[in-house]
């Protein structure tokens, strides 16, 4: 009897307390923020990130190897087209020119000498031809002089060809010598100076130290180059307005216009998806010092301003059904203290609002936050409006 009583009490404890708590304790209401469905002005836009760049920018690299003997510019200095900016030690190249010049001279002397040999043999050949015709010279001797004369003429021809060869080498050496003087190809400013006097400049295109000398850019030609995802590129057109925010000046939005769209896609760094490079020309901007290489994000407005039925973006939840390949959007409507899951059809959006095409009427109260509650809200959950909303 006693045992039965104890185990009955235990069973009551185990089942009774949790069930009593569940069904009789006043349910904790989830405190939510609400907003009404209203007409909003939406500027449909596409967000993308990229970098500020100079439209006209050249990277100078060395075409010959050598120690930098003189640097005529410093970073930030303005330079004009054709201005000497850097000189590479030319001792070796001057010596090479002199050597090739001497070879040319030597070849010219050799040709003069061969010319005299040919003239001499020509005279001999004429005399011996007359003697041969008078039968005073045997055939062997005549053939010998004829052969000598022909070979001498060929040697002269070879001498001329040899001269062309050494002259070409001389031109090559002069060209190498001229490349020891680096000049600016454009009017602009030195935006990056990657080498110092005494360091060795290395020719080549690989990114090794010494291969890049400096970058010269036209500061007036600053633009933003953003990477637009291939899914969005169809909505971008030349001439569309954009708002650009350089990360360094996040409080100062810059105006811009789409200037060009790349014709082919590429895989941008740090991403696996394809994107198109879109160049945005910067408008008249506030007095801020923009520098190439600065990170920026841009909002390109793909459609004009429109007044439409909309809800805050944060109120919209998405449910994916991978089996049916369906993506459904829904919001929670506040109805008699209960969150009612309501499916919607969403249209265009901007940073804050999303257009409602179907599912909601103007003036309906929808639950917009806080995010941590909305994210886990279920259809039929009892909710209360948060104090700051009441």
């Amino acid at each position, binding site marked *: 009897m006693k045992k039965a009583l104890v185990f009955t009490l235990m069973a009551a404890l185990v089942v009774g307390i949790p069930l009593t708590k569940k069904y009789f304790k006043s349910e904790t209401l989830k405190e939510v923020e609400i907003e009404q469905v209203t007409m909003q002005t939406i500027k449909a836009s596409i967000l993308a990130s990229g970098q500020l760049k100079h439209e006209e920018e050249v990277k100078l690299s060395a075409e010959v190897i050598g120690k930098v003997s003189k640097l005529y510019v410093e970073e930030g200095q303005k330079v004009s087209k054709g201005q000497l900016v850097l000189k590479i030690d030319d001792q070796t190249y001057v010596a090479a020119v002199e050597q090739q010049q001497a070879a040319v001279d030597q070849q010219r002397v050799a040709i003069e000498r061969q010319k005299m040999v040919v003239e001499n043999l020509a005279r001999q050949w004429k005399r011996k031809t007359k003697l041969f015709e008078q039968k005073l010279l045997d055939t062997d001797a005549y053939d010998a002089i004829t052969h000598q004369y022909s070979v001498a003429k060929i040697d002269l021809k070879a001498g001329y060809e040899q001269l062309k060869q050494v002259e070409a080498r001389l031109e090559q050496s002069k060209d190498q010598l001229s490349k020891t003087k680096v000049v600016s190809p454009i009017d602009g400013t030195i935006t990056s100076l990657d080498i110092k006097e005494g360091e060795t400049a290395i020719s080549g295109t690989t990114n090794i130290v010494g291969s890049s000398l400096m970058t010269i850019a036209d500061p007036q030609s600053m633009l933003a180059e953003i990477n637009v995802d291939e899914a969005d590129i169809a909505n971008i057109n030349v001439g569309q307005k954009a708002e650009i925010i350089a990360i360094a000046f996040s409080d100062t939005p810059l105006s811009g216009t789409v200037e060009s769209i790349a014709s082919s896609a590429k895989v941008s760094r740090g991403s696996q998806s394809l994107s198109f490079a879109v160049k945005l020309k910067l408008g008249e901007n506030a007095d801020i010092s923009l520098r190439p290489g600065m990170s920026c994000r841009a909002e390109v407005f793909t459609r004009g301003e429109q007044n439409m039925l909309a809800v805050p973006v944060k109120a919209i939840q998405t449910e994916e059904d991978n089996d049916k390949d369906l993506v459904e959007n829904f919001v929670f409507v506040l109805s008699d203290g209960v969150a009612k899951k309501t499916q919607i059809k969403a249209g265009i959006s901007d940073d804050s609002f999303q257009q409602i095409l179907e599912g909601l009427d103007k003036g309906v109260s929808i639950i917009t936050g806080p995010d941590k509650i909305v994210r886990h809200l279920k259809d039929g*959950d009892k909710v209360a409006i948060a104090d700051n909303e009441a």
Partner: protein
Amino acid sequence: MTKSPYDVSEENLASESPKSLTIFTNIFAAPQKAYEDLKYAYPVAFPLLTIVLLNMALIIALYATIDYEWFVDHMVEMQAGDVTKAEQDQMRQGMEMMSPSMMGGFGAVMAGLGIAAIYCIQALYFVIVSGITNDGFQFKQWLSFVSWSSLPSLLGTLASAVVVFTSTDGQLSPESLNPLSLNELFFGMNAIEGMGNILATTDITMFWSIALLTIGYSKWTGKDTIKSFMIVILPFVLYYGIRLLFI
């Protein structure tokens, strides 16, 4: 010849060992009798495995029912005050990499090992006390003693299971799962930290276990109830004292 109360020979055990199920019934309804029986035969496996397996089953059931996305957010939120935003994101990513069943399996194994470790530590404490008082009891006897005395904790486990199985939305936080905890029954404090957390991890069955330990200790060693209570309560005082210091 009079038999020693500590005679644990096979012959003695065979002749006097009551069934574990009888002890199980008596530990709740007639504890004096249960400890009398346990003095001669002290099975460990039955109570220990019952407690460990039921707790493991509870954790697996919890993670099978839980709204995992909500749970991840809840766990991250619990750490929000102590870690940076980047660390929270890392924690979220780490948890999202694990499936609920994997998390449940891992949690169940950890809980099983934890319970066994706690009982071993408690038994070790009684072994040390035995060493001082020379009462002749050994580790296995004390482990059996502690395990049987902890059986009331099953009520908390079963009550938690009722909460899990009657949940409709799966939004169950482990720290407020036990409806028999002091926090759930009386205080309703924030169970995530501080005093609320201590109260949430202490349920009323603990007092039942302390009472059983006192009765059993007194029965086994012949010490009076006050002395037995003082010895039994000391580890609990130490444990809660340390937790209070870190609030």
